[in-house]
Each structure stands twice: as C-alpha cells, then as structure tokens.
C-alpha cells in the first residue's frame, strides 16, 4: 500500500501544479502584449514544469535506491 500511497500523492501533486501552471499562463503570461514573447514564455513555463517534475521524481528514485537493498543481497 505504501507504493500506491506514494504514487497517488505524486499524481495529486502533479494535478494541483498543472492547474496552477495553467492558471498562471492564462492569467499572467497571456497578458504579455507581444505575441512571440508570449508564446516563448508560455511554452518555456510548461517545459520548466515538466522538467521540474522529471528531476523531482528522479530524486525520489535516487533517495529510495539509497535506502533500499536488494533482497538477493547487495545493491546493483
């Protein structure tokens, strides 16, 4: 159940942050008057959001791997 709880927590956090990013882009970035700048800043925001989540999940994996040890005896 711990695995399901961790992944569910991740899913909820990703969903909340997705709504926040959508609101931020729509309410703040869409106010930028220059169209090309608006597109670049908007796309960059989505990209940063995606990259941040990837790096965070990678960190979670690293943390869990450092804590865990193989049941077959030893890591790696």
């Amino acid at each position, binding site marked *: 159940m711990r695995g399901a709880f961790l992944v569910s927590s991740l899913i909820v956090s990703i969903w909340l942050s997705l709504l926040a990013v959508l609101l931020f882009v729509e309410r703040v970035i869409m106010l930028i008057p220059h169209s090309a700048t608006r597109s670049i800043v908007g796309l960059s925001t989505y990209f940063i959001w995606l990259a941040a989540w990837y790096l965070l*999940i990678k960190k979670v994996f690293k943390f*869990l791997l450092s804590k865990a040890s193989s049941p077959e005896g030893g890591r790696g």
Partner: protein
Amino acid sequence: MIDAGVVARAAVVACIGALTSWAVTPIAITALRRRGLVRPDVHKPGKPLVPTCGGVPLFTALTVASVAAALLFPDLSAKVLVFWLTLLIAFAVGLVDDIYVLKGEVKTLLSLLTIAPIATSAYALGLVVLGRPRVPLLGTLRLTILYWLLLPLAVAGPANVVNMLDIMNGVMPGMSIIALVALAFTSALLKSVEGLVLTAILLGALVGYYPYNKLPARIFNGDSGSLTVGAGLGALAVMTRQELVVMTVLLPHLVNGFLVLASFKGFKEHREVGERPIRVLGDGRLVPNYSPSAPLSLTRLILLMEGGGNEASVVRSYFIIECVAACLAVITALLTVIG
C-alpha cells in the same frame, strides 16, 4: 444534467458491447491458440503460454457497440463513425505489431495516423471543434500554439501511454474501466451526450472483456487491444472537449510513459530493451531493479517503496492509483462546471 432517456440508451449501448466481448472472447482465445499466436506470461512461475491479440474480440465488441450507438443516437452517427475509424486505425497498427513485431519508432509513427479521421472531420466537415479545451476556473483555454503542436499526439499519445502501462494481467482493462466510469460522470456533469455515448461504447466492451484478462489472464490484450483502447480515450477527449479531464484520468499512464521515454531516451519496443526496471524471481515474486542505471517506471517505484511484491499486489496498487486519478478527473469536471 443529461436526460434519463439518453442515459438509458447509452446503458443499452454499453450492455450490447459487454455481451459481445463476453461472448466473442472465448472464441477468440481458442482461435488464437490454434493459430499459435501465444506469448509467455513472464510474471508467472513456468512462464505459461497465453494467447495474445485480445484486441480482436475487443475491436469486434467496439464495432458492434458503435453500430448500436449509431442506431440509438442517429444524430450522433457521423461522430460515432469518426470515433470508430480512429479505433480501426489504432487496431490495425496494433494488430500488425502483434503479428509482425514493429520497431518502437515505427509503431509510434504509424499511431500518429489515428488523428486523421478527427482532423478530417474537423476541417472538412466541421463535425468536431478543435482548439477549445474546457478547463477548470478558466472556461476555455487559449492554447494558440501549444494545442496545434500537440494535436498530432492527441490520440497517439494516449494510445501509446496506455500501451506502455499494459504490463500485467488485468491492468489495462481494469484501469481503463475505472477511468471510463469517471468519464461517464464527467460527461454527465459537462452535459456532453456524445461524451456519454463514446464512453458507453468503450466501457461496455471492456467490462465484458475484463474477466478474461484479469489475473490469471486467459488472453493478453496485445498492442491491438491496448492501442485501440488508448486511442479511444484520446479520441473521446478531443471530440468532446474533455482534454484536461482525460489527461487527468490518464495521469498515472502519462507519468509512467514520460518516465519510460525519458530513461530510454526514445521509443523502444519492449523486446529491444536491455536492462529492465523490475526483475522476476524464480517463485514469481517481483523486485525492483536496484541498478542506478535501470530505467524508471511507476512499477519500479511501487516495488521500491514496498520492497518487492507479486503481480496481484502491483495490480491492486495500480487500481488504487487509478481510483485517485478518477476522483481528480471528476473534481476537474466539477471545477469546470462551477468555473
């Protein structure tokens, strides 16, 4: 809310789909075994051979349910046809892969064709409204560039991520059923009759099919099954403007797909992959791969947290996770209605 008569007719569509897949799947199991279309069940001790190409009975049921939907909802028959054509393309790509084994990149490129019926119906016939996704608190999103950049992936994306999470007995149909129950609610909340009808087509076929694929599976879905169901979910999203709702309900699939793609650095067929994210011990127990260079996946994350497990425990975890995603999808739709 949607009229009770519409709900009743949608329920009839779902029942017809369920009865068809329930009746056709045992026939398909016998026929596929006779033709030698079998694959080893690698998560079981002794790796028993199980017939694959579950997409065949699934697509048969989806076709029968689509005909029923077109007859019971004549004003939606053109949209149902577009939906069925999308399923047909995904099924054809999956079937070719099941029989001849395509390279990962080739399969992904071919799956991009699934957007063709929807794009044609939008541009040539004006049947579908594209580029106006409904989102919570904002109403309609102004995705001027991003939407059109992502449109080719709108059906191929869900098709491939559903395929990537089709890893253990019952996971694909089980998670899809949970997702579709949520989508039936969201369609009702958003007063989308076509959403309810398309959901009924998929849901019925999967409910009748699930008993044969659940642990221990008597038939594997194959790419013909998982690509078809995933494409159906993607088509439902685009055709009913529920892009964000479907994205939410598919979050576990999307996160898994993203992790796999990022760690594999591209599309790879599972047979082309060297190091696996998890390992199967002799007694059938599953353990995560402890190598730091092993690919990332949700299953590996679940097993890392639990220190190992078996197929049943992983499947149960996935169902719990999908229930959470389904609740979030319903909240997304509720916020959209309120907003």
